[in-house]
C-alpha cells in the first residue's frame, strides 16, 4: 500500500496515523516478522522498519542498542529485503536507514529493491534535502516516497526546499526532551506544526511513548504520530514482547483516536 493512500483512508475516518518504528533483525529476522504482525494487530497504520547501520549518529541510545543487536545477529541489506518481501501486511512499509548503506548498494539498486520488496517509502536521517537530488529522482521514477525531516531549528528557506521535495509525509522532529514534558509538547511542537505549511501529511516523532502524549500531538494539528524507542524498549526486555507491542500500539492508537479537536 502507498503512503498517501493510507493517509487518505485515515482522513476519511477523521483519524490520525500511528507510525511504528522497529529495527529489522532485532533480535532476529524471524522475531521482526512476528513483531510487525503484532504492531499491525495493535493498530499501527504504517511501519518504519530500520535497516541497521554500524554508526547510527541520529539515533538515541535505545535504538542504537537495537541496531547493535540486529547487526550482531547478522542482519544485512540482502537479508532485509528478503525478509520484507516475505511479510504479509497490508499497510505501508517504510525503510529507515543511513545514507552509506544506500550509497554503497548503489542508489538505483536500493530503490528498485525497495519497490520489488513492497516498501513504500524511504527515510534517511543523515541525508538533508541539499544532497538528496539523485535519490529523489529515483524514488519518483519508482513510485517510492522520500520522506524528509524538519526540525524546530529548520530555517524558512530550507523548509520550503524540504516541503517541495518531500513526499509521503513530513517527519517533524519534536525534540520533546524528557518524555512526558507536557509544556514542551504544547509549546515548540505545536509551533512547528503550524510552521510546516503543506498539504503533505505531518507526522511528529521523537520521545513519544504513551497514549496521552499521542493525543496531544494530534490535538496540536499533526496527522500522525511516530513512536520508536518505546517499542524498541519492549523488544530489548525480551519479555512477553508480541503481546506488549500490540498493547502499546493499541494504547497509542486509542489516544490518537480520542484526541480532542
Amino acid at each position, binding site marked *: 500500500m502507498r503512503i498517501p493512500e493510507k493517509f487518505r483512508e485515515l482522513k476519511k475516518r477523521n483519524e490520525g496515523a500511528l507510525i511504528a518504528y522497529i529495527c529489522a533483525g532485532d533480535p532476529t529476522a524471524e522475531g521482526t516478522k512476528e513483531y510487525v504482525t503484532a504492531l499491525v494487530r495493535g493498530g499501527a497504520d504504517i511501519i518504519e522498519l530500520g535497516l541497521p*547501520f554500524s*554508526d547510527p549518529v541520529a539515533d538515541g541510545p535505545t535504538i542504537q542498542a537495537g541496531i547493535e543487536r540486529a547487526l550482531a545477529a547478522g542482519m544485512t541489506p540482502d537479508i532485509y529485503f528478503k525478509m520484507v518481501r516475505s511479510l504479509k501486511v497490508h499497510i505501508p512499509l517504510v525503510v529507515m536507514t543511513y545514507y552509506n548503506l544506500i550509497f554503497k548498494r548503489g542508489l538505483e539498486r536500493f530503490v528498485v529493491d525497495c519497490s520489488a520488496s513492497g516498501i513504500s517509502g524511504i527515510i534517511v536521517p543523515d541525508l538533508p534535502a541539499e544532497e538528496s537530488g539523485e535519490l529523489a529522482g529515483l524514488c519518483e521514477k519508482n513510485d517510492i516516497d522520500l520522506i524528509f525531516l524538519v526540525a524546530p531549528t529548520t530555517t524558512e528557506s530550507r523548509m520550503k526546499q524540504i516541503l517541495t521535495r518531500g513526499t509521503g509525509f513530513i517527519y517533524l522532529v519534536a525534540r520533546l526532551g524528557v518524555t512526558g514534558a507536557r509544556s514542551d509538547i504544547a509549546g515548540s511542537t505545536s509551533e512547528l506544526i503550524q510552521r510546516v505549511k503543506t498539504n503533505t501529511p505531518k507526522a511528529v516523532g521523537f520521545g513519544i511513548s504513551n497514549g496521552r502524549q499521542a493525543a496531544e500531538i494530534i490535538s496540536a494539528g499533526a496527522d500522525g504520530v511516530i513512536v520508536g524507542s518505546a517499542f524498541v524498549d519492549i523488544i530489548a526486555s525480551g519479555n512477553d514482547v508480541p503481546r506488549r507491542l500490540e498493547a502499546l500500539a493499541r494504547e497509542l492508537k486509542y489516544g490518537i483516536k480520542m484526541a480532542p479537536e
Partner: protein
Amino acid sequence: MKQEQRSTKFGKYGGQFVPEVLMPVLEELTEEYEKYKDDPVFNEELDYYLRDFAGRPSPLYYAKQLSREYGVKIYLKREDLVHGGAHKLNNTLGQALLTRYMGKKRIIAETGAGQHGTACAMAGAAFGITTEVYMGAKDTVRQRMNVYRMELMGTKVIPVKSGSQTLKDAINEAMRNWVANVETTHYLIGSVVGPHPYPTMVRDFQSVIGKEVRKQIMEKEGRFPDSIVACTGGGSNAMGIFHPFIDDDVDLFAVEAGGSGMKTTDKEALHSATLCAGEDGVLHGARTKVLQNKYGQILESSSIAAGLDYAGVGPELAYLADIGRIKPRYSLDAEALEAFHDLCRLEGIIPALESSHAVAYVKKAAGSGELGDVVVINISGRGDKDLETVLGMNK
C-alpha cells in the same frame, strides 16, 4: 582549487550529510567562519594565543643524525613542542576563539585516546569557555591520565556507556548532545573530517604549520623541500602542513597506519589506511573514503597509534588523492615502532607513535629517490603518551 573552497565540497567529496536539526547550525557556522576567517581582529587574537599560549612558531629542526642514517636530508617540523604536546591545539584554539566570537557559551567534543579532548580542555580554559568532552567509558579507563588532565583544566569528561564504549559511541553521544543544544553550543571537531565547514575550517587553522615551514625552509635551504611527509588519521596535521604548498612543486605524502597488515575481514580492518584501502562512502557527515564492508557497514579500524585509528579520512585528502596531488602511503605498526626508536636514539626527540608513521615511511622510501633530496617530516606530537604502549610491545 579555489573554486572548491567556496562550495561545501572537494570535487565529489565532502558535503553535509547530517540530521536535519544540524543543518541550520552548520549554515550558521559556515557564515560565521567566513565572516571571521579574514577578520584582522580575530586573526590578531588567534595569532596572539598561538604565539604566547601555544608557543608558536614551532621550530623546523635539521635532523643531522637521522639524515645520515636514512640517507636523505631531513627536517623535522616540531609540533611536538606545541603546548599540550601536539598540533591539536592549533585547531582547538581557533575554534574556541570562534566560539567566543559567535557568542556561544559552551564547547563539546569527543575524544578517543584523549589528545583532542586535552587540547579542547586547554583552549576552553584559556578562553574561559565551559567545555564538555564525550569519551567512551572504556577509553576513560584506558586513558585515565588524560581524563584527569582534562578534569584538572575544568573540563567535564562524560563517559559514554553505550555501544562499544569507545570513540564511535563518544561521537554519537556528542552529536546527540549537540542536536539538543545547538543554540548555545559549538561542537569542536578535532580533525579535517565531519560535514562542511569543518574540513575547510580545521585545515585553515592547522595551516599555520605549513605557513611556518614555507618561511623556515627558505631561511635554511633557500628553496622549498622536495617533499613533505605527514601521518594521516583524520588528516589535520597533514592538511595543515600540505595546504600552503598545494600550488607548489612539492611532493606531498600522506602516511596512514598500516596496522599489523593491509588485510580486512567483514567486521574489521587490521589497519586504518583509508586513503590506501578505503572505498567511497558517507561517514560522520561527509562523503569521503571509508573503510567499510560490501554492505557499507563501517569496519573497526586498527593501529598501534590511537590517533590514527579511524575508519574515515578528511574529504579533501580523498579528493587530493584522486587527482594525484597527494600520495597516499602507509607504514605498518612494526615499522612505526622502529622509526620511533630511531628518532629517540639518534636525535633525542621522542615522537608520537602517530608521527612515527611518517618517519617510518621516509626510512622506507629514502633509497628509492621518490622523496628527492630534502624532506620535511611533520612531527605532529610528542610520544610521552605512548611510552606504555611501546613498553608493552617491547616486552
